[in-house]
């Protein structure tokens, strides 16, 4: 954090309530362009709800989400996607009855211009555009390591491939900011390792900014420039991986207060 990058996403005082429960409570969070930022916290801390507030699935009651200098608060999800924010889901949400290629093509929706009549009449411009989109989609498929799986129904892909396909679909939006919600959930250590390299590669190749929720501490600590910690809807810590690991509030959130008393556990977080 020596040279301050330009701020891409700025969430200020975001509050989201469900009835009496305040799921996200006055969270301030900044993501700089080109950074990889993580959001961690125990289950039910409000991480995914916070993601949903950014992507327009929920409208926060208070606070503001500013992306690229423009407020996105209250905007529809498709507008936010058009603005350049793409996401993946904690429990994979592919279009299960579409093939892998079709899933990616759906992601390209906003970059295609053809309207209904072009398709009905089979205009040459529409055909050319479709051909180009298909070729791009094939490239993305290869890039995400899904070569040869293009015509498989998404629901028939093995788990690991489904995760990759979700990323490929998100990349098809050509986002500036990619939100990954637990990208390694359910993966074995080898697959997790691959995903870590893939996330680094994404930033390197595509100049992406990545904001991710993750429980695997090895990945979080290995890949993040900065780590944010949430608990009970509040942000309780922020800093470099090393700073966060040493933060007593974080240790308490993860291990409970009694554990902190006994061990003062600096390295305990690593194992969570």
């Amino acid at each position, binding site marked *: 954090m020596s040279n301050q990058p330009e701020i891409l996403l700025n969430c200020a005082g975001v509050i989201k309530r469900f009835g009496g429960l305040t799921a996200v409570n006055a969270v301030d969070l900044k993501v700089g362009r080109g950074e990889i930022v993580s959001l961690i916290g125990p289950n039910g801390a409000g991480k995914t709800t916070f993601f949903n507030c950014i992507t327009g699935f929920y409208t926060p009651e208070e606070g503001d989400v500013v992306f690229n200098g423009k407020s996105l608060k209250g905007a529809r999800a498709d507008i936010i996607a058009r603005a350049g924010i793409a996401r993946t889901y904690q429990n994979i949400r592919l279009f299960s009855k579409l093939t892998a290629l079709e899933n990616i093509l759906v992601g390209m929706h906003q970059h295609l211009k053809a309207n209904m009549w072009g398709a009905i009449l089979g205009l040459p411009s529409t055909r050319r555009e479709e051909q180009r989109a298909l070729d791009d989609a094939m490239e993305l498929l290869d890039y995400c390591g899904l070569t040869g799986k293009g*015509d498989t129904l998404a629901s028939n892909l093995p788990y690991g491939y489904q995760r990759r396909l979700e990323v490929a679909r998100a990349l098809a939006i050509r986002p500036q900011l990619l939100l990954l919600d637990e990208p390694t959930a359910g993966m074995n250590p080898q697959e997790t390792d691959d995903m870590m390299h893939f996330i680094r590669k994404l930033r390197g190749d595509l100049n992406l900014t990545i904001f991710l929720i993750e429980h695997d501490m090895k990945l979080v600590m290995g890949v993040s420039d900065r780590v944010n910690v949430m608990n009970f809807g509040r942000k309780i810590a922020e800093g470099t991986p090393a700073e966060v690991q040493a933060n007593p509030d974080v240790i308490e959130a993860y291990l409970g207060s009694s554990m902190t008393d006994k061990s003062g556990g600096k390295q305990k977080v690593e194992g969570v």
Partner: protein
Amino acid sequence: MIGKNTLRNAAYVGVVAILLAFMDVYSSFGEKDVIADFFTLSQLLFYATLFTGGVVAARSVTGRGLGVSVLNGMVGGALVAAILALVVAFVDAVPFEGIRFVFANFSPLEGSALMQGQADALPAMILLVVIGAVVGGIAGFIAQLPLRIQNTLFGTVAAVVIIGVLQGQINRIVTLGDALAISLTFFVAYMAVKALGFKSNLELLLTGAGVGVASAILFGVAASMTGMERDTLLRGSQQLEPILLMLPVVGDLLSLLVFGGVFVLFGLYGAVATTLGRQMHDAGWYFMAVTLALGVLASARALDVPLALVIFVIFGLTFAIVPTLSVRATAIYESLPRPARTVNRRVFFVVVLVILLVVPPFMGASLANTLNLVMIYIIMGVGMNVMIGYAGLLDLGYVASFAIGAYTAGILTAPSILTCPGVVDQADAFNLLRGYEDTVLGLQQVCPGLMTFWQAWPIAIFVSGLTGMMLGVPVMRLRGDYLAIVTLGFGEILQRILISSTFKPLFGGPQGVGRIPVPTLGDIELARSTEVYYLFLLVVALGAVVVLRLASSRLGRAWRALRDDEDVAEAMGINTTVAKLLAFGVSSAFSGMGGALFGASLQGIFPNSFTLLVSINVLSLVILGGMGGIPGVFIGAFVLVGMPEILRELRDYRLLAFGVLLVVTMLMRPDGLLPPQPPKLSEQSTAHKQAAAGD
């Protein structure tokens, strides 16, 4: 030796048999011959019941050898027969009026298949059980045969039975001469290509065309030499017009060309079929088998035993060899370069098109009527498929847009208060038209409609599309069952409006809109069902093309994404409101297009035609055929709409038969008869094409 489920499973069949017996199924069709003077429909149903008992029993002991299977089959068949024998005993013991009081359909057992020609109950009962054991044993034996032989056998028997049951409706479609000429041309071309092989696709096509020309000359000469306009084998025994074989007799150049063209086309099809994908390949063979069978049927007054045997052999051979041939053809098809594949596919489509265009004069008015009705439902099904199959929106008020299309076109083309207020009232019309011979024609002269059908049609399509979109606005946030209920309400409201006396001057109240002129093409009025057929055909083809194109477009993908997961679709940048409204609009436009045509073809519209049942029928056919695919809609419409019309032969039982058919279909194929296959998009990518070209 006897499986532990054998008796129980056979008893289930027995229970069904009791019901069927008291519904009088085994007596009602005693007059209805499947095979003349040999086998009635009642007998067929009787043996089918016993056979089912045998199969069910034999299936309870699979994998324990032929002997056990036959034994269990015998036990099963005998048990079902014994249960039926109890029915006989019961009927014998109880006064007839008593049974009739409960089962209104019931008739005395004399002549029933259950009596097997016996006069007294006891010998009949003994005979029943013996027959049951024999039939069950046969069933047990067949159940042990390899699956492929079983399929061939069942398919063949089913084909013969269908032809036997429907013979009254289909025995005048094609003469034996025509059928032989067509199918031999196909067969010889197919075999020629198979035997000679081919170096290039051009060679393949030339072989086919050559065979076509050769058989045109051969059959032309044969036809003129045998003087086949008289009663000959080629002519057939009915007063049919053997169109193909009459042509050389007519003798002018044009008919000669048409005549030769038909043969060349079938020769080409035979040749091309050797290199087509499975469905296109099999379609050719089955078409030829059916043609030949119909030709055989037409050569006599009724299906008798020898003819039935011939038809049995035709279908038996076809079902036996086609699967093997099909695998080979598909393999060749896959190995062909893309341009050759396209050419061969086009030949196939041209043949299909020609057959579809030529067929109406052959099939007669009643079949054409059925086919037209099927096509109306196909049009609606294609539209409904956009809603439920692609966009996942369940619309139970679908009939509303059908009605809107019909009424819009009807009011615009028929004499109405828009053109001449006061005259439309029937009484006025009669007074005004004293001088005219034909009141309807006269009225059309005194008071023509606003515009012709061709002008009104696009307006009707537009209006129904637009109203569909407008109805979509308030239900934008609803999904699934909720949407279904609300749209159902729309449909009902519309029907009430159409019937209401408030709008009677415009919509005609319960009488609807009458005196709608038929569409005309120049001087030709498309009044008869065999003529309107072409209009329907055009619309169906157009609709299928439009929807297929939309489905593979950006919009189609957006729809399907919406169906799978609406939230994620939105997060992928899809404006779900626009996508949904377009789905409402497109599907309603299709429905309106069909509605306008429906009104014009019937020359009148009645509000009673637009009930909830229509929506439900359309929904059912889409589900039955396989949601999200166009071929599925076609199959679904044929089964769901065409079948009940054809099943009229079964009289009161047709809905029962139909219901059983639906239940069995959905149990055995829950995804529908023809579920859509995922597209192979990667083969269309530039990289793949270049790689393929490089080979």
